[in-house]
């Protein structure tokens, strides 16, 4: 039987190596810094609780994504029910949207987070997995939907992005 200390060390090492997943999921599902911290903590709690059942023959990142997204979707829904508002983007509530350079004029990052925030929780998960270069098969496995369904949703997301960019361009010119 493995020692508890080895078990903890293994978890800590894997968590460190894949921390980006927790951070990016938290950034995408929580609007304020406090909420993001709470969500990251809650994901970590659930990862630790589930770690004893983790099958080492499977990919850690896929396992981690399932837990992180399950927690994040529930967290976002709970917040929205508690606050009695929709989950749609509200710029007044957002604190320090992460960006690549610290430069607020980074258009692509702004567009990216606007797109993320405009989506419902489930489509947001699909987009995140797509941005993380997961294959359609992996996305389908994590979400519990077919590969064809994933392809349809990605295609709709692409259309949505085009519309959003066009709308912004029109607003800039007007």
């Amino acid at each position: 039987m493995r020692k508890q200390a080895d078990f903890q060390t293994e978890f800590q090492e894997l968590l460190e190596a894949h921390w980006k997943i927790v951070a990016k999921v938290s950034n995408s599902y929580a609007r304020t810094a406090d909420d993001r911290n709470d969500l990251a903590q809650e994901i970590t709690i659930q990862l630790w609780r589930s770690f004893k059942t983790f099958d080492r023959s499977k990919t850690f990142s896929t396992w981690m994504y399932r837990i992180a997204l399950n927690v994040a979707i529930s967290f976002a829904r709970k917040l929205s029910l508690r606050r009695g508002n929709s989950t749609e983007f509200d710029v007044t509530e957002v604190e320090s949207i992460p960006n690549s350079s610290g430069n607020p004029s980074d258009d692509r990052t702004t567009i990216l987070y606007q797109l993320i925030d405009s989506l419902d929780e489930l489509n947001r998960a699909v987009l995140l997995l797509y941005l993380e270069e997961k294959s359609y098969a992996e996305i389908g496995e994590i979400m519990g939907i077919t590969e064809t369904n994933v392809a349809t949703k990605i295609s709709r997301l692409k259309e949505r992005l085009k519309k959003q960019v066009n709308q912004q361009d029109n607003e800039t010119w007007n």
Partner: protein
Amino acid sequence: MELDELKTAWQASETPSRTAYFYSAKAAKSESAVSTMKFGPIFEIVMVAIAALWLGNFCYENLASPIYLVSGMLLVVTNIALLALNIRKLTLMSSIDLTTPIVENQRKLTEVRSLTIFQTKWILLISPLLWGLLLLVLPMGVHVDMLKLLGVPYMLGNVLFGIIFVPFGLWIASKFSPKFKAKLADEISGSNMKKARAYLDELREFEAG
């Protein structure tokens, strides 16, 4: 701009510090968005099952007294309904596994929530009636006949008190906590149930494509 162009921005975006998250994870939080704590339903199932047995015995002992028999039977029916609801809730909660696909898990979590909303609503609505029945049945369990002891007007007064107590309690609660009032109003009016059902529909649509 194509969606693939955003991948670079995504890969480069900042990630916050991870200091102390692991250590806080080891100290489990009491409130969780995906709480699968089963103590509540298990405790309720045990208590309700004990009560059902006791009430069954009560009904048998009072076969000759229609008023006590009917009161006991009504409480038995309520208990059986509560038992069935909690067993269903516990079964669903036990099947929730965060390492399995998201859509299925979200469906189970929402079904648990729907059952909790349903239970809260009906307990609130029938509690005035239950109060009167309990006042009659519980003392009789220890051979104290409240009807003989205090008379029918006193018992009717208590039923009336039960009917008044719930709206009065809600009014008091709303005075001290408007959020609590809104939450209760949502539970009773069924708007929380509508939200839960709408989310179940959303999950079905998402799954269908």
